[in-house]
């Protein structure tokens, strides 16, 4: 298996070089057969990387410990999910995973654009092939994930680091990689445009979706990393300005800048050089980030390897990238001349430009501060470092300026805003901002930075609401529908613009969360059972310490009772887990009491089992949940911006009055209902699933539901409540007795008096009706929706064009239409 893997890596490298050579030759000579051959090889490389990935995953699943990489990052006790996550758990595998994602992205991009951007495609193939070649080369000479033990391999695996055995950490790297590799596609198109001289705006249209998608993955990936740090590391924060974190943030800044500046080029034909440069810089930073985290150039508390050889390989590739890319930019400068110049500083393009400068400054600053220890050492000043407070001090004003620009941009007109227009646009948002700041200061919160931040949040929120409201009113006047339908139609007609506004709402919420960070409180103490810590209005009383274990780990859990202003809120169970074979790396299992206003964050920092003493750290983190919620909104906004037009076809057709409100109401009701179910979750000390020891036990765990009455009938394999834990133990005892599947099922049916305890009724006799019912309901639902859609779209076709609008809205409508037309 290992030799096959190594052979395939080498094959992929050779084929990628073939794809590169054939595409370049084909593009230069204009020979279709060469271009097609190159593209074919390119897709073959993708297929091979898929096979290599499958081989690695297979080795992890079967536990082939002869392969060093598998031995180091997994063991047989690890749940399947974390065995899969082990693929990207180490350096060698993460490089392979990177190439696989890049190859898949590349193939999709090339396939989608094969007709529309026929002239660019061979160059795109060549650029992506070069990047693939680099990573494959690194694996061939340096980091082969299929390297085997030459002597007798160890019988057991070392296991994935316990800290990484966390859901967020398992999915955070792939999302971040998707973001990183996704940024290669815009770069490939940019370089293709430069190399082929096809520098009209068409390459920008090709990269629009890719940049947004990659940006989305980067955003979600970064947020999950932050969420992981918050829930798993137990220091109470979510961002520590560690070089490794900063590495992910750098391309985020530049790609955000790119998303905005692209609009200026599309609309006004300006910033051409700037956009190409941003595409290059963003790609460069993704590679630089990888270099930073894997070469040991910057000292980080993460023990990333000090790997000189790898550092040189990466440096070589980065220099090559920069020289070739900017060389091409200089060569093509005559073709990159702007069509227009900046008319006025009170225009939207100026606001976008300012936003770009600020974002770029942020990127530059973070880069500078991250590299500062290395720079100061190189300058002979000795190794100097800067810490988190320094980053916060500098980036707080930068963030607030960005927030301000988020509000200003949409209010300014393209080219030039007249005074009357500016007053009309700015009056109410400014008033909202000023009133909020005053109110916030009145309750005793200082102006800098929280008061100002809250004020700006209000300002931006109002601008967005105003844009939606005015747009919807105009559309309502034009189409004669109700305001909600008009709103949906408005978003559908200009998805990128209004999706962008929704992303801005998310940004506002994230900033609210940041502002709350200034008011965190923390208390700590060594407690004996019965003693308590008071923090704000909360009292945390320590009760007892318990030690339990399962197949993978030993768990030390403290029970604390929480009350607020004397009213009991329930118990929390902070814990420390000691994984088998890794007992010197215990993990902190933070106990959280989440609420909209604040989190109560309890950490078991130390303990003495004999004396039942526990060292507890208790924190109150105000508004922190708004960060995660804000990211969720950003996700929704980006998805709206990415949706194809036909996704909105139903909404943009004339629907009967009242249809949209009813649909929304139903949707809200549905979400509300599920929220209720989630809210009934109770954290408890036994929230650790007992790992099934036999396949029968595993099977039954997923067939039997928790009978506590509050968990919404979750299967006991998934449910975290204490009843489920007891039921799992009972099941373990039954299977240990040697009972068969049917006997155990019969036992449960008998015990609970009905089949209610089963996740699905026994497939027999009358019960078959229960099996059929969901399918029946589903089919009926589909038919109803299809019928309604048909009916509504027919009516839309028959409806005459909209009535003329009133004079009062004429100007607004013209402006709106003008902007909508130009934006999409």
């Amino acid at each position: 298996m290992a030799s096959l893997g190594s052979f395939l890596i080498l094959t992929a490298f050779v084929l990628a070089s073939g794809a590169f050579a054939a595409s370049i030759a084909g593009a230069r000579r204009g020979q279709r057969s060469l271009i097609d051959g190159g593209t074919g090889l390119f897709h073959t490389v993708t297929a091979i990387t898929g096979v290599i990935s499958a081989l690695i995953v297979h080795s992890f699943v079967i536990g082939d410990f002869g392969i060093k990489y598998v031995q180091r990052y997994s063991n047989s006790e690890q749940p399947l999910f974390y065995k899969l996550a082990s693929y990207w758990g180490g350096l060698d595998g993460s490089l392979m995973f990177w190439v696989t994602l890049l190859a898949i992205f590349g193939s999709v991009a090339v396939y989608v654009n094969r007709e529309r951007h026929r002239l660019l495609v061979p160059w795109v193939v060549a650029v992506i092939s070069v990047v693939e070649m680099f990573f494959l080369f690194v694996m061939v000479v340096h980091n082969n994930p299929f390297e085997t033990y030459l002597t007798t391999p160890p019988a057991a695996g070392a296991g994935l680091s316990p800290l990484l055995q966390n859901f967020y950490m398992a999915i955070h790297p792939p999302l971040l990689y998707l973001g990183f590799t996704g940024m290669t596609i815009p770069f490939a198109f940019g370089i293709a445009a430069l190399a082929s001289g096809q520098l009209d705006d068409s390459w920008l249209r090709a990269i629009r979706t890719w940049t947004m998608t990659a940006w989305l993955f980067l955003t979600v990936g970064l947020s999950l990393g932050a969420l992981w740090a918050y829930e798993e590391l137990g220091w109470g924060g979510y961002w520590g300005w560690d070089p490794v974190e900063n590495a992910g943030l750098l391309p985020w800044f530049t790609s955000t800048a790119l998303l905005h500046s692209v609009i200026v080029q599309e609309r006004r034909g300006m910033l051409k050089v700037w956009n190409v440069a941003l595409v290059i810089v963003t790609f460069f930073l993704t590679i630089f980030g990888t270099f930073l985290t894997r070469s040991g150039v910057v000292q980080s508390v993460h023990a990333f390897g000090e790997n000189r050889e790898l550092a040189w390989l990466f440096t070589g590739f980065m220099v090559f990238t920069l020289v070739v890319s900017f060389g091409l930019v200089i060569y093509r400068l005559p073709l990159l001349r702007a069509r227009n110049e900046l008319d006025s500083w009170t225009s939207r393009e100026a606001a976008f430009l300012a936003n770009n400068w600020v974002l770029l400054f942020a990127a530059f600053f973070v880069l500078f501060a991250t590299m500062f220890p290395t720079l100061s050492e190189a300058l002979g000043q000795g190794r100097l470092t800067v810490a988190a407070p320094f980053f916060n001090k500098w980036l707080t004003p930068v963030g607030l300026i960005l927030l301000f620009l988020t509000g200003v941009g949409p209010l300014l007109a393209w080219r030039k805003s007249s005074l009357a227009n500016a007053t009309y646009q700015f009056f109410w948002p400014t008033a909202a901002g000023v009133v909020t700041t005053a109110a916030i200061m009145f309750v005793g919160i200082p102006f800098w930075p929280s008061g100002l931040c809250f004020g700006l949040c209000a300002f931006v929120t109002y601008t967005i609401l105003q844009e939606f409201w005015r747009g919807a009113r105009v559309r309502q006047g034009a189409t004669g529908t109700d305001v909600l339908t008009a709103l949906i139609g408005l978003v559908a007609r200009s998805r990128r613009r209004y999706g962008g506004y929704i992303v801005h709402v998310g940004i506002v919420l994230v900033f609210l969360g940041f502002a709350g960070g200034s008011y965190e409180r923390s208390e700590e103490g060594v407690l004996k059972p019965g003693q308590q810590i008071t923090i704000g209005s909360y009292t945390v009383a320590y009760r007892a310490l318990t030690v339990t274990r399962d197949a993978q780990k030993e768990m030390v859990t403290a029970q604390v009772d929480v009350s607020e202003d004397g009213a009991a809120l329930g118990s929390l169970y902070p814990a420390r887990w000691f994984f088998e074979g890794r007992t010197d790396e215990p993990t902190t299992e933070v106990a959280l009491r989440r609420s909209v206003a604040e989190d109560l964050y309890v950490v078991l920092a130390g303990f003495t089992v004999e004396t039942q003493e526990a060292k507890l750290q208790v924190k109150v983190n105000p508004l922190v949940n708004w960060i995660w919620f804000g990211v969720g909104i950003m996700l929704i906004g980006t998805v709206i911006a990415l949706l194809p037009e036909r996704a909105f076809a139903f909404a943009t057709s004339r629907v009967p009055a009242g249809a949209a409100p009813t649909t929304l109401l139903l949707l809200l009701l549905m979400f509300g209902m599920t929220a209720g179910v989630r809210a009934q979750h109770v954290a408890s000390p036994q929230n650790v699933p007992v790992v099934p020891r036999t396949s029968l036990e595993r099977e039954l765990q997923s067939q039997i539901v928790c009978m506590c009455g509050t968990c919404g009938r979750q299967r006991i394999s998934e449910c975290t409540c204490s009843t489920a834990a007891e039921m799992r133990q009972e099941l373990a005892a039954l299977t240990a007795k040697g009972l068969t599947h049917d006997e155990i099922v019969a036992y449960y049916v008998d015990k609970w008096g009905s089949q209610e305890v089963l996740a699905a009724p026994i497939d027999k006799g009358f019960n078959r009706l229960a099996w059929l019912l969901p399918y029946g309901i589903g089919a009926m639902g589909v038919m109803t929706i299809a019928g309604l859609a048909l009916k509504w779209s027919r009516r839309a076709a028959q409806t005459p064009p909209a009535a003329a609008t009133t004079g009062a809205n004429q100007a607004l409508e013209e402006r709106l239409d003008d902007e909508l037309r130009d934006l999409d």
Partner: protein
Amino acid sequence: MSTKAIRATLSGLAIVPAFIAVMYTTVAKDAVYYKHVNEVMKSPDQWYGKPMQLHGFVVDKSILQRPNTMDYRFKIKTDEYSVVADYTGIVPDTFKDGAEVVLSGRLGPEGFKVDPNGVTAKCPSKYEAAGPSGSAIR
């Protein structure tokens, strides 16, 4: 070259170095020394009172804790040089004998006084082991 281009180049030439200079000086003001124990303890008096980050390895069996408190006293070393450190607060999960740590604080004649939350232990990263201790992967 057009006047506009000249103007842009000149302003660029003026602004960029000025910006870098301002940035470097402000950053340097807030920066603290990052030192290994052996660098500092060769001539400790010249480092007294200066804020710094001190890198070293916890000396085996040197961690002492005052009962019922979070007061710690321990030694860290690099090569043959070592220093006593005092700290009050919560220590990270990976803080133990032999751990590779970075302490933030100041050196004085009595030893190294660690700032609150000033103990950072190298986290067992998912990537390759680093440093002489090889702490990440066993």
